[in-house]
């Protein structure tokens, strides 16, 4: 009798143990499933966010209209005006340079493309580069200098004597070197670069490149395709 009950309770206990074990296995499986779900979801979420990260202040809107002091490619009376605040030493601006070149060739006089300086303080050669472009501009070669500077960004970005490198570029453009050298240091040119920077700050620019399409900041330019779409749409809306 006694052994019987003992056997019974032993079996009960075994049952209970195996049940508990099963429950534990289920719980563990659920936990690991949850963990991988969370990790997978996180990676997916981060990938989505990083793709739609706003370029610059989403709420930024351009406060200063284009003026005779601005460098405009295309038609400055065009119904679609793109203003770029850019830093010659910024790799992202360098990456956008071929994009914009291609777009202004494609759209021609249907758009006006304005380049404004936004040399960031941590980029020590950005301001000298901006001044070199402006000095070349006084001899009618702003865009030529602008292109050379961007195309050779790697060469001068971390250089201690950016100024000499820019002079070399000026020589290849066959500029009047005496005039170029004095213009680079001219106060008016330095003031112009500062004025661009200030108008950028007032417009809410805090990163480069920042693009304004008809006065409104493009939150996420999205490379060539994104910008092309935005421009095409603006042209369609304004015609």
């Amino acid at each position, binding site marked *: 009798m006694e052994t019987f009950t003992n056997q019974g309770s032993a079996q009960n206990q075994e049952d209970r143990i195996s049940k508990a074990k099963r429950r534990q296995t289920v719980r*563990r499986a659920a*936990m*690991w499933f949850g*963990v991988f779900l*969370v*990790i997978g979801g*996180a*990676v997916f979420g*981060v*990938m989505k*966010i*990083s*793709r739609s*990260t706003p*370029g*610059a202040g989403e709420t930024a809107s351009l406060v200063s209209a284009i003026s005779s002091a601005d460098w405009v490619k295309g038609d400055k009376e065009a119904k679609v005006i793109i203003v770029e605040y850019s*830093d010659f030493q*910024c*790799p*992202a*601006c360098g*990456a*956008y340079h071929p994009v914009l070149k291609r777009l202004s060739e494609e759209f021609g006089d249907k758009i006006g493309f304005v380049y404004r300086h936004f040399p*960031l*303080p*941590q*980029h020590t050669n950005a301001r000298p580069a901006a001044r070199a472009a402006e000095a070349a501009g006084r001899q009618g070669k702003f865009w030529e200098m602008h292109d050379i500077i961007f195309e050779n960004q790697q060469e001068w970005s971390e250089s201690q004597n950016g100024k000499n490198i820019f002079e070399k570029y000026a020589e290849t453009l066959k500029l009047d070197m005496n005039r170029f050298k004095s213009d680079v240091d001219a106060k008016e040119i330095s003031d112009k670069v500062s004025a661009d920077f200030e108008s950028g700050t007032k417009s809410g620019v*805090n*990163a*480069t*490149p920042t693009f304004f399409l008809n006065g409104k900041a493009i939150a996420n330019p999205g*490379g060539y395709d994104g910008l092309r779409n935005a421009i095409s749409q603006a042209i369609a809306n304004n015609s």
Partner: protein
Amino acid sequence: MTDLETPLVRPSPIIPRWIVWSWLVFSFVGFLDATYLTVKHYTGGPINCSILNGCDKVATSSYAAVLGVPVALAGAVYYLFLFLLAVIYIDSSRARFFHLAVFTAFAGFLASLWFVYLQVFVLRALCLYCLFSAIDSTFLSLLGMVALRSKTKSDGYSDKEN
């Protein structure tokens, strides 16, 4: 006292619950941060240059990859490893897993010091996401130190040590 025996003798985890949970949170947040930079690294979306954030300079510098492996990716793997070790510890209640995580975090902390040094003194540009990671791994190391202390206490070694 081997780690193998510990859970048998003492079924309740010897590392305080709040430490394990904080560990999960910090390692997970670090994982998100590093994953973001990794995605940026590979999708090549140029990281904008901004007044406050020198990410462009840091993330495109020659120090952004070691032997071809982007530091961001190494960071993501590191945080994921810490996170999973903590989960394994919860699952198995074997303290050795948590201790492995703690020592990995110490190594990660040293790596963070090196990267902050590079940003401040060599690149002279700060990357907010990278600094955030450094702060995060500092917290993990502090948690790890507390975890190690609480372990020695519950093993009854605190008297000998003090």
